[in-house]
């Protein structure tokens, strides 16, 4: 099938009334929850994961993807209006976006964020459609050793490119891998790390882990701090006419959008990149090449346009490794893989051929979701601002209720609620030790797959450990992983890395 046939199939799935409705529901829900303080895309998706269980897998993924874009967009909205980035990738948006808002240009900032994101989303969708099949075909030749090495690379890269201590992040990945092994071993039937609890025989439930680490633990941490005074910039005037950019703004913004899209799309494919790296990189580039670098930090429209486009392009292309290789490159993709597995679909290169409707439907729905965001969210900005004003003391009980009922509904058992509570405490403790939970979640999802491929590779090679370095592809992947680790361990490189993350923060 050609490129256009694939897209046609995709749109025929994505544009069915049912799927458009769920895509719409996802983007609206995602934005609504994403604008709430302290709730980023990961928390939002894990909270809403259980509502997808009754749906068919395609619709479920479309809904989740919609929630993802929505939450991301919601994060940008709060970044611009109240200087409160809902997640790391909109930290950069807050710098110039909030300044624009204070100068009475909130609408322009929101419009440029929305249009930039839409452009980037469109390009990202086309990129996935163009490159995913080739990657999938390549990946179909992968054997167990290649897969194992690929996962090693993926985990290492995710750790190295994320911020914070590399050592701690690697330790968190390993911890996650161990947690992923809890339950009955498929090869031998032996129970591992269950401490005799029957509820753990099938492994620790993914939703309970995600909600505990990202939902409950967040609430506990937030409650330690006094409520921040949030001063939302008020928007004056209304009507669609106010949603247009002036010629001058448009001229300044579009090259930044194009550059941001390119940067974000490339960095998004990298494991660990996701939406975050792109927006930082784009901001730095725009600042470097701007005719007037001093205007950055004081409301430069390029400082909003570039990072927002990059962030959305990255969000889009980070689906590529997930869809073609079954590997999550960040915590959101780990959740997507968790959702696929819950729906009995083994993520990997075979998804494209075995579930073409799901694969292409999801890709087409990405574009639909982006379009819906532009159409819906600009007029709804007033509503989001009002949601922002809900004080946290009234909000957090609601978050707890959603998490508790949600995790219960996974298998109608209160055992999961207790497990979630345990992971809430664990997540809080880890946060206190400045260990980020995202690498743990990646490891948790990959644990079983990694062990499986490790065992299979060794059993096929009759116990010869060199199997991982004899295959050229596997060797290459491991070498890249090793290089990344070594380079990042060097003091010079780690300083540069810190600077990248601190420059704009």
């Amino acid at each position: 099938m050609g490129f256009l046939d694939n897209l046609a199939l995709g749109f025929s799935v994505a544009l069915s009334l049912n799927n458009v409705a769920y895509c719409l529901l996802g983007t609206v829900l995602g934005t609504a929850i994403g604008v709430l303080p302290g709730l980023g895309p990961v928390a939002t998706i894990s909270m809403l994961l259980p509502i997808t269980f009754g749906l068919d897998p395609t619709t479920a993924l479309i809904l989740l993807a919609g929630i993802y874009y929505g939450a991301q967009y919601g994060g940008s909205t709060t970044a611009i209006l109240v200087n409160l980035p809902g997640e790391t990738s909109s930290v950069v948006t807050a710098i110039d976006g909030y300044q624009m808002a204070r100068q009475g240009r909130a609408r322009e900032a929101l419009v440029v964020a929305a249009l930039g994101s839409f452009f980037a989303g469109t390009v990202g969708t086309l990129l996935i459609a163009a490159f995913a099949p080739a990657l999938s075909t390549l990946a179909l030749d992968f054997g167990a050793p290649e897969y194992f090495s690929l996962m090693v690379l993926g985990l290492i890269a995710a750790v190295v490119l994320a911020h914070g201590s590399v050592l701690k992040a690697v330790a968190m990945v390993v911890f996650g891998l161990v947690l992923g092994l809890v339950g009955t071993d498929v090869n031998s039937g032996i129970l591992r790390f269950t401490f005799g609890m029957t509820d753990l025989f099938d492994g620790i439930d993914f939703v309970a882990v995600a909600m505990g680490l990202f939902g409950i633990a967040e609430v506990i941490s937030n409650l330690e701090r006094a409520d921040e005074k949030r001063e939302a910039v008020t928007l004056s005037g209304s009507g669609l006419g106010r949603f247009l950019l002036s010629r001058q703004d448009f001229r300044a913004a579009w090259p930044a959008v194009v550059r941001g899209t390119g940067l974000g799309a490339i960095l998004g494919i990298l494991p660990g990149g996701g939406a975050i790296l792109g927006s930082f990189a784009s901001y730095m580039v725009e600042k470097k090449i701007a005719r007037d670098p001093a205007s950055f930090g004081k409301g430069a429209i390029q400082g909003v346009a570039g990072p927002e486009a990059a962030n959305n392009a990255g969000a889009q292309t980070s689906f590529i490794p997930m869809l073609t290789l079954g590997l999550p490159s960040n915590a959101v993709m780990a959740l997507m893989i968790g959702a696929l597995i819950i729906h009995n679909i083994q993520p990997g290169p075979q998804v494209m051929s075995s579930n073409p409707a799901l694969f292409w439907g999801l890709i087409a729905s990405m574009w639909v979701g982006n379009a819906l965001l532009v159409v819906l969210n600009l007029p709804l900005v007033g509503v989001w601002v009002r949601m922002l004003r809900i004080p946290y003391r009234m909000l957090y009980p609601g978050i707890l209720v959603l998490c508790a009922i949600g995790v219960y509904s996974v298998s109608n058992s209160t055992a999961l609620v207790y497990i979630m509570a345990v992971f809430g405490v664990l997540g809080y403790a880890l946060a206190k030790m400045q260990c980020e939970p995202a690498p743990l979640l990646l490891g948790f999802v990959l644990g079983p797959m990694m062990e499986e491929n490790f065992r299979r590779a060794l059993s096929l090679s009759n116990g010869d450990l060199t199997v991982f370095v004899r295959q050229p592809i596997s060797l290459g992947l491991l070498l890249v992983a090793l290089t990344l680790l070594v380079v990042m361990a060097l003091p010079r490189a780690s300083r540069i890395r810190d600077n990248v993350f601190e420059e704009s923060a």
Partner: protein
Amino acid sequence: MVANGRDLLAGLFFIAVGAVVMVMAQDYGRGTLAHVGPGFFPMVLAAAMMLLGAAIALLAVKDRVAAPLLVVWRPLAVITLAVALFALALDTLGLFLAVAILVGVSRLARRGEAWVETLLLSLVGAGVAVGLFGYLLALPVRLWPSFAM
């Protein structure tokens, strides 16, 4: 002694978890390289965890940045208790009361919240939860206390 408390604790934590995993994995059977047993991969991971933990702890001791570890117990205890009570109450007292308890107890996480607001939030939250999850989404869960219906 100035040491980075957070990192030191993190290092010790990983060493401890690694040690537990290592001990437990001994019983699962190592197997051979050609037939890797269920204990092998956990042992590798446990060893990696202990090494990483040791490295983190060593760097932390050398680190001259004081990073005080401040734990506020009240929210931690209250929220965990609230969630656990929800689980405890759900099967016998039903969704309405379980949600009311979850909301009510969780509001104790911070001192000085208005109790009228707490009462209202509990009732409204419980009502919405029963309406949405119980009747609209028809979640198979007891809604009211078993002695009531």
